[in-house]
């Protein structure tokens, strides 16, 4: 797994490449919590190049979301590939996270 930070219309975008699993989620957790510590109003996660996510990876995002909720921050997932969409679909994560087709969709008011 590789994590890169970019920005889009002055918002932070976390771009993840590869598998988010037991071995890589601690690194994701550290980066995510570090970002959330600064209380960004919105954090975007770009899933375009994510090939797999297991429950420990999802739990990492749940922890991030729970960290953002008290100050009204929003965690938005964008560009989810079909394989990941299947996992998210089974887990009904659309009821937990805000999921958008693209960054432009996510930014549309």
């Amino acid at each position: 797994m590789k994590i890169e930070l970019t920005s889009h219309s002055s918002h932070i975008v976390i771009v993840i490449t590869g598998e988010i699993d037991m071995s890589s989620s601690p690194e994701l957790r550290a980066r995510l919590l570090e970002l959330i510590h600064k209380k960004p109003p919105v954090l975007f996660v770009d899933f375009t190049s994510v090939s797999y996510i297991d429950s420990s990876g999802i739990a990492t995002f749940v922890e991030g979301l729970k960290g953002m909720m008290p100050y009204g921050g929003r965690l938005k997932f964008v560009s989810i590939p079909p394989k990941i969409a299947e996992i998210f679909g089974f887990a009904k994560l659309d009821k937990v996270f805000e999921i958008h087709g693209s960054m432009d969709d996510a930014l549309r008011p």
Partner: protein
Amino acid sequence: MTDDNTIKVSAEYLRKLEKKVEGLSALAEISEIISSTHELEELMNLVMERAKKEMGAEACSILFYNKQTNKLEFEVALCSDDSTNEMLTKTVTLEMGQGIAGWVAEKLEPLVIEDVRADKRFFGGIDKQTGFTTESMIAVPLIGRTGLIGVAEMINPRRRDYDQEIFKLLCRQFAIAIENALLYQESIRKERLRQELEIAAVLQKSFLPALPHFEKGNLRLSAITIAAAKIGGDLYDFIEPVDGKVGVLIGDVSGKGVSAALYMAKAVSDFRYAARLQTAPGKVFDEMTAQLGDSPRGMFLTAIYMIIDLASGSVRVASAGHPPFLWITGDEVKETSLLSGPPLGILPLEYPSTTIQLNPGDRLLLFTDGLFDAQDPGGERLGFGKLIDFVKGHRHEESLTESLMDYIISLEQGADRADDITIIDIKWQG
């Protein structure tokens, strides 16, 4: 008069010989200490104390090389003042190349310095901190089989006539002993961890039903669960919440290890408590999600809970972010996605309950994602689609779950399993 067996030696030769014997006996004594213990701290303290005495040194220390930080850290410091020892081991580090020890660690060469004040390499900062006055010093790199371990130092040694060769030999032997003790310490730590995990795995199993099968009236239940190498968090339960009804729970805790095992234990307890109070499966999940909400690290539970009416074959189902189950009815295998909520423990939501009606001969197959996430040695996952295809091809088999497990095992070809696999087979005879 001398006879032929008498050899004349010079006083100088005799003095050298005596020194050699003295050195060798000290070496033998220290070797004995080295072989007497595997305990790292004891080993280092005993050897350094003995070497300090041998050299008449005022103080001595061992600095370990930290590969991660590329710095030297005081591991042992022996001088007359305990607070200085503590301060050195807790707070002082040296860069590679800094001070005498840093130089020795970088060059991997020993140094004997008669007067440190005349040596530019000497770093006076430590004396300033400790109030100790270093005058002379012997520093030796400790080099094990895997490279630099650290540096051993003797401060203000009164004795200068020791045998350098024997001293080097001793340091070499000492370095290997430290390396062995470190490996021993690591193996003990791993063994302890392994035992802890084994106990956790046994305890975790004790939360599952004592028997993996259950029969009542027209209903037959069987479960199979196979743990991955690490402790996972699959769970299932068969209960009779009220007369004439049987409850079946399947669940999967996020993550692995002891934390997952503890969370699973809590989830099963919460479930058993809620299942006695609530008659609708969705209500049971409402209770559970509230109870599991405060868990650390975003942990959650995906689950399906069904309450089967033994008289009618009607089934009330609730699903919380769990993969769909398969419904084998007649010649059909249906992927059954019901109205579902997200996993339990994330948000305080209300979970709907849905009713389905079983026909005689129907079968429901519930499983955790470890089943369709199973990987071949190349990392290719089975996938939900192929799982359905397999079940379609074997839907009439009595031992469908065994066939399925055999299929997974042949797919994995001995590759490490990343996740637990649990399958529950529900047969309704009607």
